[in-house]
């Protein structure tokens, strides 16, 4: 057992500060355990959002020592406990209280993305057939738990606060899962270029680094979408080829 100091952000939209709490850390504890222990023993009014404690609900996103992480998946043994451990809410979203932020902006964005639009059924039984090879590519995107850590670390949202012009990596992953789906026939490329602001992404790969589901966000979702936008709007040769070879 070791005594560790945690600097927890306490406050609301109007004001806030870090407060120090000391608590015992035992083997196997994760940061969320420590926060719950502090909440139970020292700060009953501490606001913290959590649900599954298994890295699957995406609720307990926060910044541990300045890095966006799921508190339930961050082992205390993996962080230096000889110095105070800072825990603060995500910076890309408005603060509600203490460690809880208002992530509802993300849900508004998601509603705006054109939904799945399958082609006409092509099998005799009135359904579709898909090859595994075709669905493999979008399967990775289905792992997303919507923890919004990628949104939090993205400097376009976090630093430049361009929430009105840029939908963020989470929704490029969502867009890619639809746009690359072998059954989908909707065209979202115009939206990606204009209202979704994919051009603002400058490929720093921070979103990929923080993803707790190890989704290769930049390489497998954002860059392929950027390339499709180039096809559609910036590449004269592709425009020429499309006359003879429709998108498929």
């Amino acid at each position, binding site marked *: 057992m070791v005594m560790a100091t945690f600097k927890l952000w306490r406050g609301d939209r109007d004001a806030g500060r870090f407060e120090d709490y000391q608590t015992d850390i035992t083997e196997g504890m994760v940061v969320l355990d420590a926060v719950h222990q502090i909440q139970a023993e020292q700060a009953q009014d501490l606001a913290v959002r959590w649900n599954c404690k298994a890295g699957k609900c995406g609720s307990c996103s926060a910044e541990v020592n300045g890095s966006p992480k799921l508190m339930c998946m961050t082992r205390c043994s993996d962080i230096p406990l000889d110095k105070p451990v800072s825990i603060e809410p995500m910076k890309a979203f408005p603060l509600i209280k203490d460690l809880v932020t208002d992530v509802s902006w993300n849900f508004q964005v998601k509603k705006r993305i054109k939904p799945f639009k399958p082609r006409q059924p092509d099998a005799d039984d009135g359904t579709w057939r898909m090859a595994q090879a075709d669905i493999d590519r979008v399967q990775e995107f289905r792992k997303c738990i919507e923890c919004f850590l990628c949104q939090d670390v993205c400097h376009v949202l976090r630093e430049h*606060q361009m929430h009105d012009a840029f939908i963020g990596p989470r929704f490029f992953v969502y867009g890619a899962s639809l746009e690359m789906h072998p059954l989908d026939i909707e065209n979202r490329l115009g939206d990606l270029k204009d209202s979704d602001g994919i051009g603002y992404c400058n490929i*720093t790969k921070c979103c990929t680094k923080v993803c707790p589901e190890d989704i290769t966000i930049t390489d497998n979702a954002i860059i392929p979408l950027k390339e499709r936008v180039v096809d559609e709007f910036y590449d004269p040769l592709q425009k020429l080829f499309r006359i003879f070879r429709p998108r498929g």
Partner: protein
Amino acid sequence: MAQAELTLKQHGFGQTRRRDLWWLQPLAVFAGLSTFVIYTTWAAFQGEYYAFGPYLSPLYSPELFGESSHSWFGAKPSWWPAVLPWSPAFLILWAPGGFRLTCYYYRGAYYKAFWADPPSCAVAEPRHRYLGENSFPLILQNIHRYFLYLALLFVVVLAYDVWNALWFTDAATGATSFGIGIGTLVLAANVVFLGGYTLGCHSLRHLVGGIRDRLSASPARLKAYNCVGCLNRRHMLWAWMSLCWVGFSDVYVRLCAMGIWTDLRIL
């Protein structure tokens, strides 16, 4: 769309609560890329010591016009403005340079290392204004696939240089014979690294298969997509290996040509 009003903004360049050595990677990228750019610029301006026997420095290949035996179309062209310095490298170096400059990996790396945009993940930036690649000038990065087409040609040319590097001319008799020198291996490794980097390009992955939603209908495309994707997963590694080896290849040929290093013959 509703604007999210943030309450915990970061202020001040470099501000972060990260405790790790977040500055180390951008610093290493800055040092590595700066060293390469300075060296290649210097080497390009030399205009000499770029060929040695059957070896031609990759910084000068293809030698479209020049004084060495590797030149495709003869000596310095008469239309080259007299007021400008001359080097065969000036005619070709823009193409591989443009390929690397617009490469998705390098873009992310040099935006961090040279523009601090951001300096590192979750670290505050020096500027408030941000345009990204959404408008001029960085929207021009979308030209990357055109540099890819040129880069693929360069890989073919450099592979041909390796073939040439297998044939040594006897200075006394003028006879040509098959052989392998250390320089041959250096140039061959250069093609392998450049091939791994170029064939793992994100744009190539898109063009060979990523452009389609139903790849299974075209097995050749699917195979090509998987092959390029395999190289793409280590794109950063290929990028750095090829960058360092191109520089080393030029150093090797240059020092051999200057008589400082001796090229050992294996066969």
